[in-house]
């Protein structure tokens, strides 16, 4: 057996022995997802056990170095582990913005001390992070942001407001873009980390069209942030932010090599067989869905071997989010009047309708589809103009 085949067999055996049966069923909703953090309440003993076992093995962040809480797996090994988890139906032991976004940025820009401290906390699911980027007047034009940190020698005093902060009301810490030089647009922003319990930080959930409130407004009123809680250099936070956005977009496309290929059509056969035009739409969607999964697999293989264009994740973000919106439109059409039900038990509390509405944000958050197309056009296709 080759080394990779040996690894596959070992990973499989480990998963079979350590992943509790309850954690091999699909998560029913967000409440089944383990986000970790100081205030997280485990939904079951199995969920807690699964996290603890993965933490001990480094499998919450398998491709991170062992020194920072990972398992030190190669890209190929990580892909194999994900494939084996998908085959057994294992749930993700830990979801977190720390894993997807902050960790990779720390790995590239953080000090050794920051990597050991913050990445270790993330890997163990101890601290739940949120992201402070957008502001009321700075959406797609993010770099116009105004939240200001006044230099007070050994610390900054931060004042301002962020918006669309995912789960800010549940997060323990925030990674936040703060203007530290008002005279320089791009090179006047710093990337700061601070505790959401720091005096002067407050949050207010925003109720969305789905009826849920995954986002908050976040206010900073004379918040003191020590100087050592900066990632990268002072006034060079935009570099960190851009790198991290790239990772966010990559994550959206990298939902696992074998993930997502199963058609939702089979379960809807009774309806589709009576609705030929809808069935045709579903068929064309399946073509696009299989295409996107193959595209994502190819992109990840190229990304990990350094062959992908640095701006390619913008393309994947555009394609993936538009596809997800299409999927939910079809789910609603196939579901008919039952999918319109908003609260009933029959509709699982209106889950189809709420998910459908939630996906409308996919092509807005993390860079709108229009901004993605601008970036692809200018950076990859090298189209001329401003």
């Amino acid at each position, binding site marked *: 057996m080759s080394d990779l085949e040996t690894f596959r067999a070992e990973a499989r055996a480990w998963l079979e022995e350590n992943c509790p049966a309850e954690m091999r069923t699909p998560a029913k909703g967000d409440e089944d997802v383990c986000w970790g953090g100081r205030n997280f309440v485990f939904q079951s003993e199995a969920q807690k056990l699964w996290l603890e076992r993965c933490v001990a093995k480094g499998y919450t962040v398998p491709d991170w170095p062992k020194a920072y809480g990972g398992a030190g797996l190669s890209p190929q090994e990580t892909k194999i582990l994900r494939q084996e988890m998908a085959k057994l139906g294992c749930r993700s032991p830990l979801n977190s913005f720390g894993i997807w976004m902050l960790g990779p940025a720390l790995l590239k820009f953080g000090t050794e001390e920051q990597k050991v401290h913050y990445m270790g906390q993330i890997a163990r699911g101890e601290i739940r992070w949120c992201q402070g980027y957008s502001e009321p007047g700075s959406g797609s034009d993010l770099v116009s942001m105004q939240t200001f940190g006044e230099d007070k020698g050994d610390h900054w005093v931060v004042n301002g407001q962020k918006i669309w902060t995912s789960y800010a009301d549940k997060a323990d810490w925030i990674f936040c873009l703060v203007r530290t030089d008002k005279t320089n647009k791009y090179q006047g922003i710093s990337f700061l980390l601070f505790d959401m319990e720091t005096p002067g930080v407050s949050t207010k959930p925003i109720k969305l069209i789905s009826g849920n409130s995954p986002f908050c407004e976040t206010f900073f009123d004379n918040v003191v942030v020590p100087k050592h809680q900066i990632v990268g250099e002072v006034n060079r936070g935009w570099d960190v932010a851009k790198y991290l956005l790239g990772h966010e977009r990559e994550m959206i496309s990298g939902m696992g090599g074998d993930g997502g290929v199963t*058609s939702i059509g089979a379960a809807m056969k009774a309806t589709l*067989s009576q609705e030929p035009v809808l069935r045709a739409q579903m068929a064309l969607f399946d073509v696009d869905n*299989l*295409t996107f999964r193959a595209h994502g697999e190819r*992109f990840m293989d190229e990304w990990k071997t350094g062959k992908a264009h640095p701006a390619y994740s913008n*393309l994947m973000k555009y394609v993936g989010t538009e596809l997800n919106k299409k999927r939910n439109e079809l789910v609603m059409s196939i579901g008919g009047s039952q999918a319109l039900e908003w609260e009933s038990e029959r509709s699982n509390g209106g889950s189809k309708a709420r998910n459908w509405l939630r996906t409308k944000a996919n092509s807005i958050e993390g860079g709108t589809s229009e901004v993605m197309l601008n970036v*692809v056009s*200018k950076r990859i296709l090298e189209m001329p*103009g401003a």
Partner: protein
Amino acid sequence: MAMTLNDDQNMLRDTARDFMASEAPVTHFRKFRDMGCKDGFSHGLWKQFAEIGFTGVLIPEADGGMGMGQIEAGIVLEEIGRNLAPSPFLTTSVAAVEALKLADKAMRDRWFPGILAGETVIGIAIEEGVKHRPEQIACVAERSGNGFKLTGQKQFVVQGASSDMLIVAARTAGAAGETDGLTLFAVDKDAAGLSMEAVRLVDSAVAAHVKLDGVQLDADAVIGEVDGGWAVLSKMLDAGRVGAAAEMVGVGSGAMDMTFEYLKTRKQFDRVIGEFQALQHRAAHLYGEMEGARSIVLKAQSLMDEGHAKAELYVAAAKAKAGLACNLAVREGVQMHGGIGMTDEYDIGLYMKRDRSLNEFFGDAYYHADRVATMNGY
């Protein structure tokens, strides 16, 4: 398998790219089109394909070929597509070879050497109506003497009238609509009772309407098993489909690159038109569609090469997606070129014609999307 080309495959791509660019650029295609060539391709170029080894890319090494897979055949096809190089490669070296690989040794020995030498051309005689419906084959092969007698008609037999042999699918049992009871035959071009009418297509290829009027064949003309032809036919069709998809990735990429270049040079309103966001967004969207098509085609090829159970599903998806993306590329190409896109002098229109033909070949995007739905259980 990683979804990236390995070193050998990259080398083959460079070879194919250089070869097509120097020996068969679009000017080559125009030359043969303008002379009203009866074959629609150059026998000289077909010989050159053989000299560089392309014609035997899928022929097993034991039979004197390169013994490679669909990924490698697709690499050659992409460059054929990008240059609109006219050749019998897709029908002869891909579809026919995949069928003949399942034939007995005598049959392989009869046809492989000619293909390897770039001397033999083989036509695929499947279609009986204007749309691809292989399970509806009604052409009859009744037992006669020590063999069979074929009666029926075929159409859209690309390069049929230039072929040395036709692979004909006929019914030895069962009724139209059934996959059981089909048999594949190798029919020599000189067989008594075989007649052809060559017709020029929109892309200047030449296809044949074929009449089989009691064509008498010996039993050794059978490819594969009598009544069990569906297995061979499926293999042949899937190779042809994934091959056509790869060629469409080339056609679409060629059209797209040409169009992007035009956007960067054409000036209106005192600006290069590529500065206009209305065009930039469409260009970026098209790029995404073509990248998706390239990915699903590579996935389908690698699953076929692995003999994976899901290969059929992915081939259908790949043929559908490549067809839709390539079609978008040529439509956007002509539109973004504006008036000159409508002229015969500019190449973009030639890509539009080729796309149309390849989309139709072995089932269009809608046919294959329907198959994806069926295979996905609805």
